């Protein structure tokens, strides 16, 4: 029922409520009635044919930066610990 992964909006009609997303190379009809204000090229999460959330690039970058930091620190066990 849930595509789960972020997909990109590739078509959007004039009302902004109906369009298509690219799901692994296939164009899938999607309703944007629950997500007003999205635009072509936005990345969204789709559930049962309806987009329910827009991806925030800034937040995505922050998560990646945090992961990078954890990976870099993992080579040095004495720093990762911080144990009592």
């Amino acid at each position, binding site marked *: *029922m*849930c595509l*789960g992964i*972020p997909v990109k909006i590739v078509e959007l009609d004039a009302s902004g409520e109906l369009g298509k997303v690219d799901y692994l190379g296939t164009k899938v009809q999607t*309703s944007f*009635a*629950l*997500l*007003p204000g999205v635009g072509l090229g936005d990345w969204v*999460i789709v*559930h*049962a*044919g*309806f987009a*329910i*959330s827009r*991806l*925030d*690039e800034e*937040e*995505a970058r*922050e*998560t*990646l930066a*945090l*992961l*990078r930091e*954890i*990976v870099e*620190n*993992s080579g040095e*066990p004495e720093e*990762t*610990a*911080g*144990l*009592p």
Partner: protein
Amino acid sequence: MDLLTDKKSTFALLRKIEALARGVPSPVRVMEVCGTHTMTVHRHGLKSLLREAGIEMISGPGCPVCITPNAFHEAAIELVTGREGLILATFGDMTRVPTRRGALRTAIPAPGSSVRIVYSPEEPLALAARESGREVVFFGAGFETTIPSIALMARKARRTGLRNFAVLSALWTIPPPLRAILESGEIRLSGFLYPGHVTAVIGLAPYAFIAREFGFPGAVAGFEPADVLLGIISVLEQIRSGRPAVANTYGRVVRPEGNPAARAVMDEILDPADSRWRGLGLIPRSGLRLKRDYADYDAVRKYGLDLAVGAEDLPGCRCGEVLRGMSEPTNCRLFGRACTPDSPRGPCMVSFEGACFVLFKYRDVAHG
């Protein structure tokens, strides 16, 4: 976004988890509330890797197909076998749930009636517009991810004066069963991993009581392996600091306030109702039903269905215990023998988010 999925970050995160877990009383038991999290945990071999790091993952009630009691399925079977000219539309998994009356998929519909599998709530509405001579009942099961779109369809039907469309609503909200699980005290848990996409709709506030009243940690997490592990790290940090919270580790998709448009549609069309969950029993205000204004579109009212009577599960099925974290699927005598995805004995083996199905499918995955 390779960092979200690659082994390097998985193992770096696991090392961090192991170090954090050493500083807290063991065992650390984290319930992944959502079935899609269960899938991530098993598909990538995180279950056993986390166990080695000191974390026990417990599956929760987050599979709508699984928690919908058999009374609903039997009512749906009754509708399509007992009434002529009726189309029963539902998601694919729902047609395979076994009951004492068989499954929807194998039910023999009355003349002119049929079972139709749909992917989106828009399809049954379009079907009703096309097939004006037949009644269309959408047997819609879902959590807050699916509920707003179903509510939207009821509104659209009413606005366009479509009279041959109704919803048999198996709509469940996630926070109430979490209260029920904490209040029952049946299982010892250390924290919750909150479902990412449900929270993208409802926001963080509905979980606030869990930290405030129960002093219980929790984190909203996404669905890639690194997302799940980041959520667990947050839970561990809350335990260590003694400051339980509703943390959001899935900020790229989840806004603190959720999705206001989706929430508004739910509030406009639906009312909370005391509802019965498989395995968890009656939970106050844990389901949603169409408001009185929409009585004509509510299959329960329209066809006088009685869902209050609990239809029994098939003998031997322990899905109910699995759903409240009381039992692992492997403790069930039927698992993998009399009960498989090809011939399921209960919904937890039917749904691709069901704990039994997931464990069966990925039983050979030891390490990701």
